[in-house]
């Protein structure tokens, strides 16, 4: 039987030992407890006794300078002097591999060390955290702490400075609604626009004459009156898109954009096409008053698919309003101005106004809209036509 003699671990710190001398030669008879070899450990020299009786068959490591890891087999003892033994390889190969691995690791470590060092801005941990939270560029801040350290107060001061340039307005419920509705409108409705110049000399004359008789009406009143009568013949203009349906209404209600203190509301003039100018004017006045007192009823804001928005009194020439859903068209009215026109090869001066439209292309095509405009222009420029001709 072959028994292994190992380099014994002779202390907690001992990793390897040196064989100082073999006290027996290969082939010698050895008794258990007899001193077999001498080892030098990290601490001192030991005489190691043989743990077995037998013959020292083979010495794998001779005495010398070579360190031998603990538990390495260093010799074999056999029961008989001549039994065959297989000899294991030494540790050389393993060592070579470890050496290579070590060199690779050293290289990697050296790479890591070569990291650039930036110039350091002194800032307290709290200030740094705040700066990150509020997205503040700390290079733009001068610290007020010792040695220029940026502290919490510096960040807050910086933020305060920005605050002075504007005032944060709280969203009112109305503004939220406006914002939401108009954003949706602009995002969801494929708007297209056009505008036209309309001569209003005749209209102004009528307005003037009525005023002389004590009946005072606004341009808006006249436009509601006239437009409602044209829409009667172009019902798509007053239609709506609700739940993916195009709804065409029997009545012609006209929505009117009314500016109030915290925004804009739209009130309805019901059955405008059936009303006299006087009735329309009365309705409009009531509506505006109610709107400014915040007293519009649900009924008042129903029927506002087609909307007239008049900014003419604010000296606006021309603008394109956003469609008021679920409606599909809106009309913007600019100021009345004097302009030079060519009529019958003669240059004449007329009063005119810009009227612009935004249409929902899903419902109204360009030609339909153009025909509607053509008719509207006709009746506005010459309201008397309504007396004799059915639009």
């Amino acid at each position, binding site marked *: 039987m072959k028994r292994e003699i190992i380099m014994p671990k002779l202390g907690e710190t001992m990793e390897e030992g040196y064989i100082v001398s073999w006290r027996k030669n290969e082939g010698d008879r050895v008794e258990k407890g007899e001193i077999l070899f001498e080892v030098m450990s990290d601490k001192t020299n030991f005489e190691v006794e043989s743990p077995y009786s037998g013959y020292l068959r083979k010495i794998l490591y001779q005495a010398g300078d070579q360190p031998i890891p603990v538990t390495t087999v260093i010799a074999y003892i056999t029961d008989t002097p001549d039994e065959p033994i297989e000899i294991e390889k030494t540790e050389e190969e393993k060592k070579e591999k470890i050496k290579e691995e070590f060199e690779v690791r050293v290289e990697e470590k050296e790479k890591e060390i070569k990291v650039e060092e930036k110039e350091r801005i002194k800032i*307290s*941990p*709290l200030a740094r*955290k705040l700066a990150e939270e509020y997205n503040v560029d700390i290079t733009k801040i001068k610290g007020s*702490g*010792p040695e220029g350290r940026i*502290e*919490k107060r510096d960040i807050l001061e910086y933020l305060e400075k920005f605050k002075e340039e504007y005032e944060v307005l709280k969203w009112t419920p109305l503004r939220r609604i406006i914002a939401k509705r108009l954003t949706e409108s602009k995002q969801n409705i494929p708007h297209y626009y056009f505008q036209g110049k309309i001569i209003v000399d005749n209209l102004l004359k009528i307005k003037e004459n009525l005023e002389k008789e004590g009946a005072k009406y606004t341009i808006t009143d006249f436009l509601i009156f006239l437009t409602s009568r044209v829409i009667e013949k172009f019902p798509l203009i007053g239609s709506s898109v609700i739940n993916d349906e195009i709804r065409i209404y029997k009545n012609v209600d006209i929505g009117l954009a009314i500016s109030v203190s915290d925004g804009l509301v739209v009130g309805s003039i019901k059955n405008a096409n059936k009303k006299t100018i006087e009735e329309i004017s009365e309705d409009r006045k009531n509506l505006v008053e109610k709107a400014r007192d915040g007293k519009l009823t649900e009924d008042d804001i129903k029927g506002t698919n087609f909307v007239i928005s008049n900014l003419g009194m604010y000296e606006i020439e021309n603008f394109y309003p956003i469609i008021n859903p679920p409606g599909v068209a809106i009309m913007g009215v600019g100021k009345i101005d004097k302009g030079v026109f060519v009529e019958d090869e003669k240059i004449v001066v007329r009063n005119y106004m810009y009227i612009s439209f935004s249409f929902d292309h899903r419902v109204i095509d360009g030609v339909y809209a153009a025909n509607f405009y053509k008719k509207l222009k006709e009746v506005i420029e010459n309201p008397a036509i309504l007396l004799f001709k059915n639009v």
Partner: protein
Amino acid sequence: MRIITYRQALNEALDEEMARDERVFLLGEDIAIYGGAYGVTAGLWQKYGDQRVIDTPISENAIVGVALGAAITGMRPVAEIMYIDFIGLCMDQLNNQVAKIRYMFGGKCTVPLVIRTEGGAGRSLGAHHSQSLEAWLIHIPGIKVVMPSTPYDAKGLLKSAIRDDNPVVFIEHKMLYNTKGEVPEEEYLVPIGVADIKREGKDVTIVTYSRMVLFSLEAAEILEKEGISVEVVDLRTLLPMDIETVVKSVKKTNRVVIVEEDCKTGGTGAEIGMQIIENAFDYLDAPIIRVAGADVPMPKSPVLEKLAIPDVERICKAVKEVLK
């Protein structure tokens, strides 16, 4: 409420716990007939006799070793080491045996043992009777370290320590024995490991313990008149440290001053400061400042002794410094 001294509060705690549990006994130098070097055990020998209040030879190592042997075999000893300066004489038993025995034995024993001692400067006693060595002790896992600042805390914490199944080193302060405070007649306990906010404030947090709590409160009073609002956190127990309470305060004030009587280098404040950095770094708006004992043996001269430990003025200065 009733006002009594720190000394009386401790005496009551011992008396009540001895009456409550007959396994509780006291041993130490000069604690029986003499009543203790600072009079904490006065009257207890007369009341409980030789078997429960035992005068020992001057053998600190044996006092702690013997207390340990008794603790793991069914008793609940309260040992007194007259001055914390003598703890070096029993550090082997405390560190190697008392603190480790339960762990080394895989949890198979409990060590219901209290070591009462006192420390601190202020009586012009020189280098062997004036030290603050708590930093040595908080470095020993396995024990608890308690340092009360008021009579109320002293009584409640000592009673909790005696009922604790872990070894507790209970460090009194020689300058506090005659201080007075409210202590209720009825029984109460103060839990070990829970800090106490002794004064609320919003500008700066002072973290402190033992006698320095009193100094810090005085400083806070002065600073308030200058418009500075100081919060004073009394740790009460150094091991285990209630860092949560400290962190909560730091999150509010963002600025910290640590006031400790022990030497600055390697001191308790270093541990407190580091724990704050580990747990509340992002809430600090200025470097933590320590007001600590000088790194010298405690000098005898009363003038030098005063200079060697923090005072109210230095605390005020540090608070202003941390607010700069």
